[in-house]
């Protein structure tokens, strides 16, 4: 490459507005990264260090004298609390565990996997029906589901509670799965139908000529071809359901049945001054999606944006 073309294609000298741009981008980056990092650090810090050195990493601090009360015999039990430990420590995680965060983790896994799988299955089948039937029936079916996108669950949650309470489906993980499916069917049907309509018609006809029934056509042809959009909707549903507080708040009062966000919300009363435990809860509840996001960013961004675009 000659020196001349280098000058044209190479980096422009940094101008004033460019400095402004970079400053703006950096400020927002810090505004997002800093709180998250501080919260993660704090899970390993003593209460004293959280207050004294709010943004420092969880490295051992010198000359820390534990309060007198920590030396008392009863303070050496399991509930010593984060003021009686040195940085770094995992006392916050111990406290969170004692507040049954792992039990709720298991509940969340059950509810979310059931909700995501069944919503995907039911909405893919519906999208298939809409695509294949055509005409007014398809229009009516599609319209019925998509109208639901305009009704946030904060509007019908109260009456859903009344109905589920009558059916003895409150305080039940099954009840949560059912209401989750009902709440997210509209957007999933909408996205999946949009995708299946782009599949070439010949594909369906060829399969019909080969004597394949609708079920075979759905299972062997349509589902495999729809994997990208199923994955996008699946990620959207995963994030929605994993993070949902609304339905567990309305439907579940038995702590044994709490999902993660529900248990976490209770931490406010339980650990109001114990930030290490509170943030250990935040870290545990966020870890699965954060780890998945690190490796599957593109998929997450595409999936969650398809939810936004359509929902």
């Amino acid at each position: 490459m000659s020196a001349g073309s280098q000058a044209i294609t190479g980096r422009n000298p940094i101008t004033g507005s460019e400095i402004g741009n970079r400053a703006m981008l950096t400020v927002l980056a810090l505004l997002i990264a800093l709180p998250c990092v501080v919260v993660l650090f704090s899970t390993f810090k003593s209460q004293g260090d959280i207050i004294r050195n709010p943004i420092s990493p969880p490295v051992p601090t010198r000359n820390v004298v534990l309060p007198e009360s920590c030396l008392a015999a009863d303070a050496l039990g399991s509930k010593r609390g984060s003021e009686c430990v040195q940085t770094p420590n995992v006392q916050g995680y111990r406290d969170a565990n004692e507040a049954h965060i792992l039990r709720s983790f298991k509940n969340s896994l059950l509810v979310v996997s059931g909700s995501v799988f069944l919503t995907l299955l039911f909405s893919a089948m519906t999208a298939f029906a809409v695509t294949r039937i055509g005409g007014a029936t398809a229009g009516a079916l599609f319209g019925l589901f998509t109208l639901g996108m305009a009704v946030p669950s904060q509007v019908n949650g109260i009456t859903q509670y009344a109905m589920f309470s009558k059916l003895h489906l409150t305080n039940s993980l099954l009840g949560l799965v059912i209401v989750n499916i009902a709440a997210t069917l509209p957007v999933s049907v909408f996205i999946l139908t949009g995708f299946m309509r782009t599949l070439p018609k010949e594909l369906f006809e060829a399969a019909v000529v080969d004597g394949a029934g609708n079920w075979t056509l759905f299972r062997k042809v349509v589902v495999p071809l729809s994997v990208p959009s199923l994955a996008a909707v699946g990620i959207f549903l995963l994030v929605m359901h994993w993070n949902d507080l609304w339905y567990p708040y309305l439907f579940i009062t038995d702590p044994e049945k709490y999902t993660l966000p529900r248990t976490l919300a209770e931490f406010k009363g339980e650990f109001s001054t114990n930030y290490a435990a509170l943030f250990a809860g935040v870290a545990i509840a966020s870890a699965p999606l954060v780890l998945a996001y690190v490796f599957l960013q593109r998929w997450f961004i595409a999936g969650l944006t398809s939810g936004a675009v359509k929902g």
Partner: protein
Amino acid sequence: MPRKSTGVIKRRPLLLFAAPALVVYGVCFVIPTFQALFYSLFSWEGPGGEDRVFIDIENYKTKLFDDTMFKTSVGVTLKFMFLVVIFQTLVALLFSLKLVKDTKPTIFLRALYFFPTILSSTAVAFIWNFIYDPSDAGLVSGILRSLGIDYRPAFLASPNTALWCLIFTQVWFHAGQMMVVFVAGLQGIPKDFTEAASIDGATKWQTFRKVTWPLLGPATGIVVAYTTLQSFRAFDLVYVMTQGGPGDSNATRLLSYHIVQTAFGSRAFGEAAAESVVFMALIALVTFLQRRVLKVMGADVKGHN
């Protein structure tokens, strides 16, 4: 040569494919939505309470004319919605303009700005409770103290600033997601259009106003509509951060929170149902008005393809 398909598609078996979804959606979504209309005409304590009594439109009269807390809540909800829509749209648009090109730094920044979207609102509420905490343990208080500044902003503790703090948190939470929508919209605008404008001597602002903004209409429509719905749904932040307060101020009493309090706190399901119906009407009205406003502002929300 492809043969014409002989079998006429049978309707009934295909409808069976939609059956599971229809049953769940019909029973657990459509019926409850209409039940709100029905229950709103009754005085009812809710499930397990005494029998409901038909009182015609009495609940609506109370809500619309007498109930000052409900009216306050409607006002707070509209203010929150309006300000979140303005700020979130502006922030997302401003930053997306800097992140259109697919380079390594921009892809990284987009992923970073998007990050809060995958957190639960409960987690976000705790993070911001910590940032806003006016005690020694709060992040802002701590940073100010270590800088030698002896000032502790009240944040959530003052009725004057609490709602603004929630708005800031909401925008922090979701602006990255809306940036991605704008970036996709911007990338869909052919380069020739903006280049032609600048060759014709248009300034950057003129190019944006006359070329980019109108063509970005569909993306803007999506961002505004989604942000609006999202702001109406913001129950979790209020529940964890302010409980509608601080104190009895009702400064952050969003409708989503207020309706739950009416139903479960006051055991007034009939009234809560009436409030839900008003809420729904409000959402429909706001959505309708927004489309009109965007149209007047020259953004072609329906799309150009």
